């Protein structure tokens, strides 16, 4: 456990360097990089690269690819550690080694995932034409180009199914969140626990459940609406948990002020709590949508795909975007495999937009209730 500080450095940090050799500051640095740090890092990277190149490519018969990168990485860690040990001592060198390992592995994950998104864009944009949004796949020959037809059937299905699911789960989710923050009582704990457990239910089970409950007993036919109900089960816990968090951060002062003025619990919730948390609740809804818009499994079980646009969610098979991608991947027609990338690009873009919108709205300051959509909250109560 050594830290790099010894000689008192008379506030060199405050004065700009005025020529001459840079004053040596050995003060404890908690953040930031000194020039020596940067040089060490660059040196270790370059040196280990050169060494690995020499050994791996020139002296042995090995060549290329993953092996090289892995060897380079380990050579880098050893070099970096040795350099730090030389300059700063064993303790600090261990610290450096840990930092380098953690940072590179962490970055590897992030970079890998971003690379996947880039790959989707690179594969998907070739066959993306405006008609993807206006035409369906009905009557398109298997020999046609990947650009023929479009994904309208899937887009219509996705919009209707997710829309219906939102209409059902938003009020229910917010009501549950209000219950968890304002009412609680004896069943509060089990409800919380099961909400968490519910968020882990795989979407394929949600689809299976709707099939078992409603379709096998002929209450509903296989249809887009059955898919909506299955999506509701995946969406509900997301909305409940996010809403609960935003309702919880509404300042207690506001509630108390309302009660002190004689407001009832209901009026406090409707006039104070919900309007204050409005932005957060919209965010919750959008996150719920983003959570389910990519679920293919309920579609496989509860609706089945159809190449033709089906505007009626209550009757007949209705495709959605993830289901279209799934079917196109499984298809043995090469053009379909390419279409799957196009649809994947559209879906990823959709999730991205939803996500950015959710963030932007979450960041807005809480306001009054003047926005037209929420004007009903401004109406006078039944008093």
């Amino acid at each position, binding site marked *: *456990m050594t*830290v790099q500080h010894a000689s008192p450095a008379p506030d060199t940090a405050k004065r700009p360097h005025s020529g001459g050799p840079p004053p040596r500051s050995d003060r404890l640095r*908690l953040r930031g990089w000194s020039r020596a740090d940067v040089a060490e890092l660059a040196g270790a990277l370059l040196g280990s690269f050169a060494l690995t190149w020499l050994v791996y490519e020139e002296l042995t018969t090995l060549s290329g*690819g*993953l092996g090289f990168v892995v060897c380079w990485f380990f050579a880098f860690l050893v070099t970096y550690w040795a350099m730090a040990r030389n300059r700063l001592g064993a303790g*600090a060198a*261990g610290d450096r080694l*840990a*930092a380098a390992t*953690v*940072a590179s*592995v962490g970055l590897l*994950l*992030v970079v890998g*995932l*971003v690379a996947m998104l880039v790959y989707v864009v690179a*594969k998907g944009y070739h066959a993306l034409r405006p008609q993807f949004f206006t035409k369906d796949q009905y009557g398109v020959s298997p020999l046609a180009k990947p650009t023929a037809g479009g994904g309208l059937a899937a887009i219509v299905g996705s919009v209707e199914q997710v829309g219906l699911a939102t209409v059902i789960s938003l009020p229910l989710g917010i009501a*549950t969140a*209000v*219950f968890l923050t*304002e*009412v609680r009582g004896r*069943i*509060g704990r089990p*409800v919380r*626990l*099961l*909400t968490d*457990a519910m*968020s*882990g*239910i*795989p979407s*394929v089970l949600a689809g*299976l*459940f709707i099939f078992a409950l409603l379709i*096998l007993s002929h209450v509903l036919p296989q249809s887009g609406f059955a898919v909506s109900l299955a999506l509701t*089960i995946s969406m*509900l816990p997301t909305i409940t948990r996010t809403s609960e968090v935003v309702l919880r951060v509404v300042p207690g002062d506001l509630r108390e002020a*309302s009660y002190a003025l*004689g*407001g*009832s*619990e*209901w*009026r406090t919730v409707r006039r*104070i709590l919900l309007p204050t948390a409005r932005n957060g609740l919209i965010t919750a809804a959008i996150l719920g949508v983003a959570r389910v818009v990519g679920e*293919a*499994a309920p579609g*496989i*079980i509860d609706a089945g795909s159809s190449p033709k646009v089906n505007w009626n969610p209550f009757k007949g098979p209705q495709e959605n975007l*993830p289901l279209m*991608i*799934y079917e196109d*991947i499984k298809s043995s027609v090469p053009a379909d495999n390419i279409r799957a*990338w196009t649809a*994947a690009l559209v879906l990823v873009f959709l*999730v991205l937009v*939803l*996500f950015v919108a959710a963030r932007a709205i979450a960041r807005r300051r809480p306001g009054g209730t003047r926005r037209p959509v929420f004007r009903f909250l401004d109406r006078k109560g039944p008093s």
Partner: protein
Amino acid sequence: MAGTGSKLIDFEVRRPRQDVIFRATARVAGAMTLALMAVIFVALLVRSYRALHLVGIGKFLTTQQWVPEAGKFGVGSLLFNTVMIGVVALVIAVPVSLCAALLISEYSPPAVSSALKTLVELLAAMPSVVFGYWGLEYLTPRIRPLSQWLANHLAFLPIFKVTSSSFAGSTFIAGIVVALMVSPVLTAVAQEVFFQAPSGQREAALALGGTKWGMIRKVVLPFGRGGIVGGTMLAFGRAVGETVAVVVVISATATRQVHILQSGANSISAWIAETWGESNPIGISALMAAGLTLFLLTLIVNAAASVIVNRTAKAGGPSL
């Protein structure tokens, strides 16, 4: 609030009834969650009764084949293969996600940290079918040399042994894809608890002359232990339930697959999606029973994870 004096009095007269209705409604909404979980369980149980009655629960849990027409089916191999994919995914995802979480909470400046946090949340929302397709088209050919290498050098371990030369669609590849899918979730949970490590203890550790890594090891990681364990279980629950990504990547097999590098893998959820279209009534009942098994598995894992995460968040970690 447009409240006036007269209305105040009005309120007091009305308050009980209004609030009784409000509280009742909120309770009903809360109870819906409880009821829904119960109904899911009962519905799956009722629909799987026929299949379970035919073969018996003990046989169903151990039988390693799936031929519903012949009355021979069970989750013996499916359950094993499901857990294998989950375990492979966790072995990869846990260390990587912990590093990513530490990078976000400890090693990056605030601006970078919040950008990374947003990115991780975004990646957690990415559709699984996209991960699956990427795994099939991009990862499968590129992971082949690694599989080959592992098979050549670590074959003395039974799980790395291969009996055929095909590496595509293996438990290993499915595990990697699922690992990438659950990593953002795990990272988000872990980074959340790391941020909560008390700054007093952090500063104390540094003031005593500890290095940053020493501080992380002695303060941040012990404090976050519950979050790590809970997050890992959460990720496991996700991993075993993952459907479409797995279906797309694997070459489905109905037998128990011990060799993770070898072509042929499966999971309960993948099997349900894969065989759904071609099932007759008894086949559907058998799949319902398989679904029920998965439901109980994920329910237990997730409830336990939730308890552990919440307890840590409240307790405030170990004292110095």
